[in-house]
C-alpha cells in the first residue's frame, strides 16, 4: 500500500505543478499582467496548434525524418568509433582530445557552413544531427566498455574466451546501461539539431516554420511549434526507454530488488 501511494505521489505532484503553472500563465495574460501581443495564453497556443495542425504535421514529418536519419547514422558511427577506441589503444589516444574539442564547437556556428557546403536540402540537416549525436553515444560506450571488472576479463581468459567472445558476452552487455543514457541525450540533440539546421535554410521542417511565423510576429504559433518540438523530443526519449526495457530485461529484476 505504502509503495503504491508513494508511486502515485511521484506522478501527481509534478502533474499538479505543471497544471498550476499553466493556470498561473493563463491568469497572468487574462488579467493583463503581461500584454497579450508579447505573450499568448496557453489556450491561444492550443488553438494555434489545432488551427495549424496539418501544416505542423507535414513540417514535423520533415524534421523527424532528418532527426531519425541523422540519429541512426550518428549511433552507427559512434558505435564504430567506440569499438575501435576500445580495441586499439592508439585509436583511443588519437581520438580522445579530438572528440572533446569537437564538442566545444557550437552547432549554431557550423550550421551555416554546412548549408554553404551541402545546400538547402536534406544533407546539411542530417550531417548536423550526426555531428551532435555521435559524441554522447561514443563517450557512453567507451565509458561502459572501460567499466568492466578486469577480474571478469581474467575469468573469461581462464575459460579460453576469444577477444570477440569477451566483447560480445561481457563488454557489450556491461555498456548497455551507459549506451542508453547516451542515447536518451542523443535523441533530444537530434530533434534540436535538425531544427537549428532548418533555421538557416530549407524548404520545410519545424525550423523553417518557426522562422516564418517569427517574421510574421505570430507568437502563438511560435509557442505552438515549441510545444511540438518538446513533444517530439519526449516521444523519442520515451522510445529509447521502451527499447531499453525490451533489450535489458535484467534491469527490471534489479529495480524490483531495490524497492523491496
Amino acid at each position: 500500500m505504502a509503495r503504491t501511494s508513494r508511486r502515485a505521489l511521484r506522478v501527481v505532484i509534478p502533474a499538479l505543478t505543471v497544471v498550476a503553472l499553466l493556470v498561473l500563465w493563463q491568469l497572468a495574460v487574462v488579467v493583463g499582467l503581461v500584454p497579450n501581443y508579447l505573450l499568448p495564453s496557453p489556450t491561444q497556443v492550443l488553438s494555434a496548434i489545432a488551427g495549424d495542425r496539418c501544416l505542423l504535421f507535414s513540417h514535423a514529418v520533415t524534421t523527424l525524418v532528418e532527426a531519425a536519419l541523422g540519429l541512426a547514422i550518428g549511433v552507427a558511427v559512434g558505435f564504430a568509433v567506440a569499438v575501435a577506441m576500445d580495441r586499439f589503444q592508439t585509436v583511443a589516444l588519437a581520438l580522445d582530445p579530438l572528440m572533446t574539442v569537437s564538442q566545444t564547437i557550437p552547432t549554431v556556428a557550423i550550421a551555416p557552413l554546412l548549408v554553404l557546403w551541402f545546400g538547402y536540402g536534406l544533407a546539411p540537416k542530417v550531417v548536423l544531427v550526426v555531428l551532435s549525436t555521435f559524441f554522447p553515444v561514443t563517450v557512453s560506450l567507451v565509458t561502459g566498455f572501460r567499466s568492466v571488472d578486469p577480474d571478469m576479463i581474467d575469468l573469461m581468459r581462464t575459460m579460453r574466451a576469444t577477444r570477440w567472445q569477451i566483447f560480445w558476452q561481457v563488454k557489450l552487455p556491461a555498456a548497455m546501461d551507459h549506451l542508453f543514457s547516451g542515447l536518451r541525450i542523443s535523441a533530444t540533440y537530434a530533434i534540436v539539431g535538425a531544427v537549428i539546421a532548418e533555421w538557416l535554410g530549407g524548404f520545410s521542417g519545424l525550423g523553417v516554420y518557426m522562422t516564418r511565423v517569427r517574421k510574421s510576429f505570430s507568437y502563438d504559433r511560435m509557442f505552438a511549434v515549441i510545444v511540438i518540438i518538446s513533444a517530439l523530443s519526449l516521444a523519442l526519449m520515451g522510445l529509447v526507454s521502451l527499447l531499453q526495457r525490451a533489450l535489458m530485461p535484467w534491469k527490471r529484476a534489479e529495480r524490483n530488488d531495490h524497492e523491496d
Partner: protein
Amino acid sequence: MRGVVDEVPALEARRLTLAWSGDEAPVVRGVSLHVGVGESVCLVGRSGCGKTTILHALSGLTRPRAGSVLLHGRDVTGVPGDVSYMLQKDLLLPSKRIIDNVCLPLVLSGESVGEARAKARPLFGRFGLEGCEDSWPSELSGGMRQRAAFLRTYLMGNDVLLLDEPFSALDAITRAEMRSWYCDMARELRLATLTITHDVDEAVGMAQRIYVLTGDPRAGVPSRVSAEVRVGRPEGVSFEEFALSHEFLACKREVLEALGA
C-alpha cells in the same frame, strides 16, 4: 592413502618466482607445491604476501619469471584454460540468467545454448540451486550466487580447481555451510582443489595439506613456502566435530607458528 603423493600430481608448481611487473623485485621466490588427484590443499598466508599472484600464475593468466607449472605432468606454464579458477568475487554477469551464467564456459567452448543448458540443468540440485535456473543474479543471496559461481567453475570441466578466498564474502553461518558442502562435493567428484585463505581455521577445516606462505614483498622480502602441514581429519568426521578436537588445535598451532603469529 599415502599413494596419492606417489602418483603424478594433478597440479604441480616447480620453483616459481613471480613479480607484479617486469623490473620489480619478486613477490614470491622459489615456491614449489603440488596438489594430488582429488586432494584438497590450502595455501595460507597474510594479506599481501602474494597468494593471489601465485594463483594467477598457476591458472596461466600470467607467466612466471622463473619456474614452471605442470598439469598431470604436462607443462602448461603461462597457458590459461586448463585449470578452473574461481576468483574472490562471484563475477556473475548481471545480464544473464543463472542458467546462462553457469553455462558460460560451455557456450564459450562452442556448444549451443540448448546443449549447454541441457547439460547444466541436472546439476542444479547437487549444487543447491534448484529453482534458481531462470533467476537473475541480482535476485539471489550471496550464498546462492557463490553456489552458482561454483557450478560455473565446475562446468569449466577441469579436474583442478583454484579457489581464491571463496567464502570470505559470506556471513559466518553461510560460510560454514558452504565450506562443508564444497568439501563433500569435491570429494564426490574427485576434484583437486587448491584454496588460498588467510583464515587458519578454514584451512585446517577443509584441507588435507596446508602450505604456509611467509614473507613481506612490500618490504622487499619475497614470500616463500615456510612449512607444509599435514591435517589428519578422519574420514566421516564432520567439520564441526573436527574443529573441537585436539588434532585440529595441534594443526592450527603448527600453522600459526609457521606464520610467525
